[in-house]
């Protein structure tokens, strides 16, 4: 389908009656997905927002349930978020991350009902990348600047209009809510979209071949590589908190006024970068230093997740590269691994 660019505000405004609409917004060099106000406008020129849209499905802090302990009973109240949402302007890499999150939260024996409620009530509308950034490497990880995985609709910017690809019935239904704004795409539109896609792909930086990473990691747990590669890591949570696929969390209780009578259990993001993440009450820590913790991050993304789900837990969005306080570049780490894989193999 085709929608004129001038009609986009009308389209989004029209959704506001039913949905909370999230759009990417820049604010003084920072950026994230924020709710659109009625009649509000937004422009987005960057590639990826600083914070990924992950927080819409999996907020940094959320209440799971509240409790009240009475004399002989406990009252528990679950806090589900059933807000209907449309997230507009999602980049294909971030959209792909939803599939990874789905696996962790929905495709295991125990489903996560908090994630499920948000996920089922969110329509994901993507925006194809015309000009990928130099830090983008989605194509190395099964994605692409025009990929639609994880999306319900994909918008492609054709100058004065968007070509809208209908990816799922849910996305199609969203268009049908305001049929007057859309017309069928013509051959010229489709051709323009194909050309834009070819151009975007040609703008991607040289793609690191990652095929050898997993096999090397399988045998490389004890490799001396790990003794040096983490060395400049300061152990903060930037790479994990800004990663669209990182999903680790903590569960804690918040008692009201410090009494054990009523309060809430909250879930907050946590990270393998912090020593406390794995510290036992006894004082033993299976990942005692930055070396083990950095190895865990790489191993989890490129080996363990592949083992469990068939794909790496990385979508190549480049956020950890751009935002690392010390420029520890995951592409360099992968290149080093590939070099070792190609060379002498694993030195025990």
């Amino acid at each position, binding site marked *: 389908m085709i929608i004129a660019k001038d009609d986009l505000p009308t389209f989004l405004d029209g959704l506001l009656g039913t949905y909370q609409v999230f759009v990417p917004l820049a604010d003084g060099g920072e950026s994230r997905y924020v709710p659109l106000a009625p009649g509000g406008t937004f422009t987005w020129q960057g590639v990826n927002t600083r914070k990924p849209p992950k927080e819409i499905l999996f907020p940094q802090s959320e*209440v799971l349930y*509240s409790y009240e302990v009475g004399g002989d009973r406990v009252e528990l109240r679950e806090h589900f978020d059933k807000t209907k949402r449309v997230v507009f302007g999602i980049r294909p890499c971030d959209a792909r991350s939803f599939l990874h999150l789905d696996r962790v939260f929905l495709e295991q024996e125990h489903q996560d009902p908090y994630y499920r409620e948000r996920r089922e009530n969110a329509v994901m509308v993507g925006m194809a990348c015309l000009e990928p950034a130099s830090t983008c490497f989605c194509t190395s990880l099964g994605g692409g600047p025009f990929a639609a995985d994880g999306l319900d609709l994909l918008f492609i910017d054709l100058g004065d209009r968007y070509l809208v690809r209908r990816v799922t019935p849910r996305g199609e239904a969203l268009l049908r809510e305001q049929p007057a704004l859309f017309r069928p795409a013509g051959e010229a539109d489709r051709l323009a979209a194909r050309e834009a896609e070819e151009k975007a792909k040609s703008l991607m930086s040289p793609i690191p071949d990652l095929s050898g990473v997993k096999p090397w990691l399988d045998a490389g747990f004890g490799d001396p590589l790990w003794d040096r590669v983490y060395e400049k890591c300061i152990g903060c949570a930037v790479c994990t908190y800004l990663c669209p696929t990182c999903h680790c969390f903590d569960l804690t209780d*918040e*008692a*009201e006024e410090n009494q054990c009578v009523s*309060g*809430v259990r909250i879930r907050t993001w946590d990270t393998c970068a912090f020593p406390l993440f794995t510290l036992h009450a006894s004082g033993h820590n299976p990942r005692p230093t930055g070396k083990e913790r950095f190895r865990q991050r790489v191993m989890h993304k490129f080996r363990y997740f592949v083992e469990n789900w068939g794909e790496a837990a990385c979508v190549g969005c480049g956020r950890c590269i751009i935002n690392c306080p010390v420029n520890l570049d995951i592409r360099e780490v992968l290149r080093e691994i590939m070099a070792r894989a190609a060379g002498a193999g694993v030195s025990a």
Partner: protein
Amino acid sequence: MDAGPEPKIVGFLCNWCSYAAADLAGINRLQYPASVRIIRVPCSGRVSPLFLLTALRRGADAVLVSGCHPGDCHYTSGNLVARRRFAMLKSLLEFAGLDEGRVNFTWISASEAADFARVTTRIYQRAKDLGPYRGALRKESGVPRRE
């Protein structure tokens, strides 16, 4: 007293002086505001900035730290070390936007029961004038708070 919610004031009082002054105020039947909740500490030097932040974070409308007069510290210099800390802390909190009058420091010796009553009454009055603390340290949290 006028209507409106009663302020909550947390007072961290040194065991050797101000706490005794509060005690003496009671013995002498000197009135001081019941809104002052006293926490006895071994020395004003024991009072960490985190104590005051926590009090404000968790419901206090004003805080008071009171220790021995400089030179009279039971541990020789605890209050002198604390004095620098308090100078910086009060400046920082007010720079962060906290109303003047919510964080208070003073020296009151064991015999100065009347001073204790007067100071706490003034702090109470100022806290009452300021109204409940609803500043940035009291914003959103995981706990659905009942007011």
